[in-house]
């Protein structure tokens, strides 16, 4: 087995210590991570079959709702491609997502924000990319909410994403923001990312072309995982 991924460009990622985001102060390692040219442990990763995915897993409007009911809020579709840095599709990979409801509250006992829980909204879903790396899911647009960091910090509306890729070297957790949200520029968590273009790539674009008339608007969000060097495997002469 010979493989390899491009070294992660750490300038695109938030450093561990970002005092503006206060929780990072005690949770950030202070020593440099150790670089390693990789081994089978990082070049492999779990695979999940399409049989994992239930019919409503990618529909947060309905997957927690009582029969005949649906979640309250602006109905949206989020869609895009999971690609690697060489723009190759990452096929059949698991994408998980979670979010607050249309009032900005999570279904979690520790979330005590004043906004009400929606009895028909759970707040999580998952899907798998198809042969072209494409994924989509239906949800309601989450609201911004205040959080205890500074005295008046608000998270912009956002959806959390967890993506596996084909090897642990590609494993990524990130967040998607919404085009035009003034809270993005103010958010201490967004600001942990040092690169303005890298922030911009986490902002989903309103996509009227794929919006469904009289039903829901679409937002386009592509996710890029680390690129893999194109090497010929000794046991798979056709390459990768």
């Amino acid at each position, binding site marked *: *087995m010979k493989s390899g991924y*491009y070294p992660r*460009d*750490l300038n695109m*990622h*938030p*450093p561990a210590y*970002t005092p503006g*985001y206060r*929780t*990072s102060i*005690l*949770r*950030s*390692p202070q*020593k440099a*991570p*150790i670089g*390693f040219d990789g*081994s*089978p*442990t*990082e070049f*492999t*990763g*779990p*695979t*999940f079959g399409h049989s994992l995915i239930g019919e409503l897993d990618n529909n947060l409007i309905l*997957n927690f709702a009582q029969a005949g009911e649906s979640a309250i809020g602006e109905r949206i579709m989020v869609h895009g491609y999971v*690609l690697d*840095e*060489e*723009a190759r599709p990452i096929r059949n990979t698991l994408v998980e997502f*979670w979010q607050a409801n249309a009032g900005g509250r999570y*279904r*979690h006992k*520790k979330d005590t924000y004043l906004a009400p829980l929606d009895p028909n909204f*759970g707040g*999580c*879903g*998952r899907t798998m990319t198809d042969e072209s790396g494409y994924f989509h899911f239906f949800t309601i647009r989450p609201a911004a909410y205040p959080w205890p960091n500074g005295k008046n910090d608000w998270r912009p509306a956002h959806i*959390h994403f967890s993506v596996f890729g*084909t090897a*642990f070297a590609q*494993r*990524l*957790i*990130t967040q998607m923001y919404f085009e035009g949200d003034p809270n993005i520029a103010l958010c201490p*968590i967004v600001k*942990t*990312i040092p690169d303005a*273009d*890298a*922030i911009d*790539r*986490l902002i989903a674009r309103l996509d009227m072309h794929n919006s469904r008339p009289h039903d829901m608007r679409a937002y386009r969000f592509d*996710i*890029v995982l680390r*690129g893999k060097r194109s090497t010929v495997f000794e046991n*798979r002469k056709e390459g990768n």
Partner: protein
Amino acid sequence: MPYAPKLKESASQTAGPYVHIGCMPNTTGIHTIFDTDLGSTMFTGEAKGERINIEAVIFDGSGTPVKDAMVEIWQADANGVFASPEDGREADPHFTGFGRQHADHDTGVFRFETIKPGAVSVDGKTYAPHVLMWIAARGINLALATRVYFDDEAEANEADPFLSRIELKSRVPTLIAKRDGNTYRHEIHLQGPDETVFFDL
């Protein structure tokens, strides 16, 4: 000829305090969406190898257990093969190699029921038995990767290419779990004199 990748990797963001809603909803009491939480068991049958538990606690810079973390492990089977097409060899069909657990909300302990991995021998290199551990939590901007080795594998650890790479030998013990019956106990320190070795995946 100079060459740069066409796209750039998406930036990481913290998993936040409610990562369990998305990744392990059943543990937060959301039972009706997914039948079981992903990675809650690493077995699909009677897997080969010795059954072991790995129990660990993550401590922050003040020595307080991190109680809201989600931890994943990824490891080889008893023969040192990964259940992944990227491995190219045939893995134990009854063992997934992938586990996902959360820290106990009161104590911060997380626990994996797994098997002792075999040494991984590939391309003339042999890696001592180990488990990749991946930590996502509030306040962690880019998930942290580390490894867990086993204290009853001293000889293999001595020859391990990854452990040998660590220049400051006094840091090596931060990667070695201690055996106690069938359970290996491990501590992860995010900061301080015992800061765990994390590595750039």
